């Protein structure tokens, strides 16, 4: 059936159903606003379909197989065989349940769902082209719009994504076999999460990174722990080298060519080459200029602390609105956008944004590092608790890493936390709450923490900063 150009109206038009858009749409509907959500592909966006969720599922699967296969010291003898196709099928099942859930939640909250590709006609009109042949389009008039079109992987010259040899992260999450040799271009968090996953699944992993270490924004002692563990898992690192091209190898595989700044060339054999060098905003075809909005030189849409673009009734949230490009930032911005449109005094006033990297061990950080606190004019005091002094960590068999708290010496206010170790992604939640609440080291130290838990290490780090830790020596 050919549907003609029908015109409808809505109070809030949300474009893109990733963690920015669907959360914004649900909250807007909860606030009583007539809300329409347009999605051209799959509910849940990059995060649910080819990002956070599928990567974490494969990290669980590969981690379990690897751990069980390496637990002789615990008295466990197993030789797990992984059926990669089956593991990816399980992952797909998780994704399907979640994306189905997002669709249901939208509907249950009264969001109008419109499949199709949206573009701006003017400041108050969008056109939605329906997918498929001859499916026509519709015009939607809106009072407010929220742009949540997300991001896509950056391609580098000479490395067009093509499933049989050059993988994007999405391909790496959808493989049906484990390549014998995996070359990875980029040692950022996506590259490192996938390097760990595939190394545990038995691939020979080589990571090529232009900078001189992995995980650029993190502190040296944090990086070192993750890099050392990756090396133990057999990951080979080549720093200071940029990927220049690929070619076919003699053995049926491929060759990854790299070059240093000085022009020194190297070549690494690989059966698949994963390019994970970053993500770029998606605004093409969206015609934001028709609505009077400009993008910056990297393609992002600038917003204020109420997520408003230069055109006040149009908001932008999530990856398309710039760094940090994280799912929970997208969702937070989505909530702020919806509530601001609903006339509430909500703002992006969070004191700190936690972030996690699901490597082995995990990293969880929030707020300021010691260096940042100093740069910000604080006189920071730092407390640490190594996990090798934690009873709970020992009983899990994972004792790498530490909890570090950064606080203001004068007032004791907690300013930041860096955690690397088991469950760091979960442990960071308490530190984030401490920062938002304006908690002091004393507050964290005086809060009773369950024994034996990893979270006790947060309390011990607070005590260490006060010179009175029990389970580690005070400096």
């Amino acid at each position, binding site marked *: 059936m050919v549907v003609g150009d029908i015109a409808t109206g809505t109070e809030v038009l949300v474009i893109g159903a990733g963690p920015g858009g669907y959360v914004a749409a649900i909250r807007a509907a909860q606030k009583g606003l007539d809300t329409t959500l347009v999605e051209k592909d799959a509910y849940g966006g990059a995060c649910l379909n080819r990002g956070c969720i599928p990567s974490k599922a494969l990290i669980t699967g590969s981690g379990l197989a690897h751990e069980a296969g390496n637990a002789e010291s615990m008295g466990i003898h197993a030789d797990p065989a992984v059926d990669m196709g089956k593991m990816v099928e399980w992952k797909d099942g998780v994704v399907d349940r979640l994306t189905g859930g997002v669709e249901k939640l939208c509907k249950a909250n009264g969001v109008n769902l419109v499949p199709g590709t949206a573009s701006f006609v003017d400041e108050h009109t969008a056109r939605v082209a329906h997918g498929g042949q001859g499916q026509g389009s519709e015009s939607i008039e809106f009072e407010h719009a929220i742009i949540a079109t997300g991001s896509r992987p950056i391609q580098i010259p000479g490395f067009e994504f093509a499933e049989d040899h050059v993988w994007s992260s999405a391909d790496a999450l959808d493989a049906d076999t484990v390549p014998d040799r995996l070359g990875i271009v980029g040692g950022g968090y996506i590259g490192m999460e996938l390097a760990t996953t595939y190394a545990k699944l038995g691939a020979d992993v080589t990571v090529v990174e232009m900078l001189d270490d992995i995980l650029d924004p993190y502190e040296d002692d944090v990086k070192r722990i993750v890099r050392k563990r990756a090396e133990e898992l057999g990951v080979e690192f080549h720093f200071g080298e940029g990927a220049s091209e690929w070619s076919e190898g003699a053995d049926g595989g491929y060759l990854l060519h790299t070059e240093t700044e000085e022009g020194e060339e190297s070549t690494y054999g690989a059966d698949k080459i994963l390019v994970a060098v970053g993500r770029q905003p998606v605004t093409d075809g969206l015609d934001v200029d028709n609505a009077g909005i400009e993008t910056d030189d990297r393609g992002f849409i600038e917003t204020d602390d109420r997520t408003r673009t230069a055109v006040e009734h149009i908001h932008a949230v999530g990856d398309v609105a710039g760094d940090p490009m994280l799912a929970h930032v997208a969702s937070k911005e989505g909530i702020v956008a919806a509530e601001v449109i609903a006339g509430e005094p909500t703002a992006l006033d969070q004191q700190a944004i936690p972030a996690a990297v699901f490597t082995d061990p995990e990293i969880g950080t929030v707020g300021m590092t010691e260096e940042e606190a100093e740069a*910000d004019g604080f006189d920071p005091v730092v407390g640490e608790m190594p996990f090798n002094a934690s009873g709970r960590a020992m009983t899990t068999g994972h004792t790498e890493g530490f909890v570090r708290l950064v606080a203001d010496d004068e007032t004791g206010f907690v300013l930041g936390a860096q955690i690397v170790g088991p469950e760091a992604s979960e442990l960071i939640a308490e530190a984030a709450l401490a920062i*938002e609440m304006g908690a002091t080291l004393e507050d964290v130290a005086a809060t009773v923490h369950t024994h034996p838990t990893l979270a006790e290490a947060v309390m011990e780090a607070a005590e260490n900063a006060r010179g009175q830790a029990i389970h580690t020596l005070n400096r």
Partner: protein
Amino acid sequence: ETEPDTPPGRTFAPPSARRLARELGVDIAVVDGSGPGGRIGEADVRAHAEGGGDHAGADAGDSGSDKAPAPTPTDVGSSDRKSAVHKRGD
């Protein structure tokens, strides 16, 4: 229309107090905090909005607020949660 900005840098006040400041049109950066280290509670924000700067202490139960600033775990002697909450909130 006055719409207080979110102040740059760290604000030592819980999210509820920050939201209240925006609701009342108060710039939280100039509110005196009565909590430890100068932490700002909701009562401080209300006091500022009503009284032009002079804050009611954290334990002042007469600030007209139905919420109260975050307590500190050094509230010695109140082992009874309810009385602690009410002391802060009434």
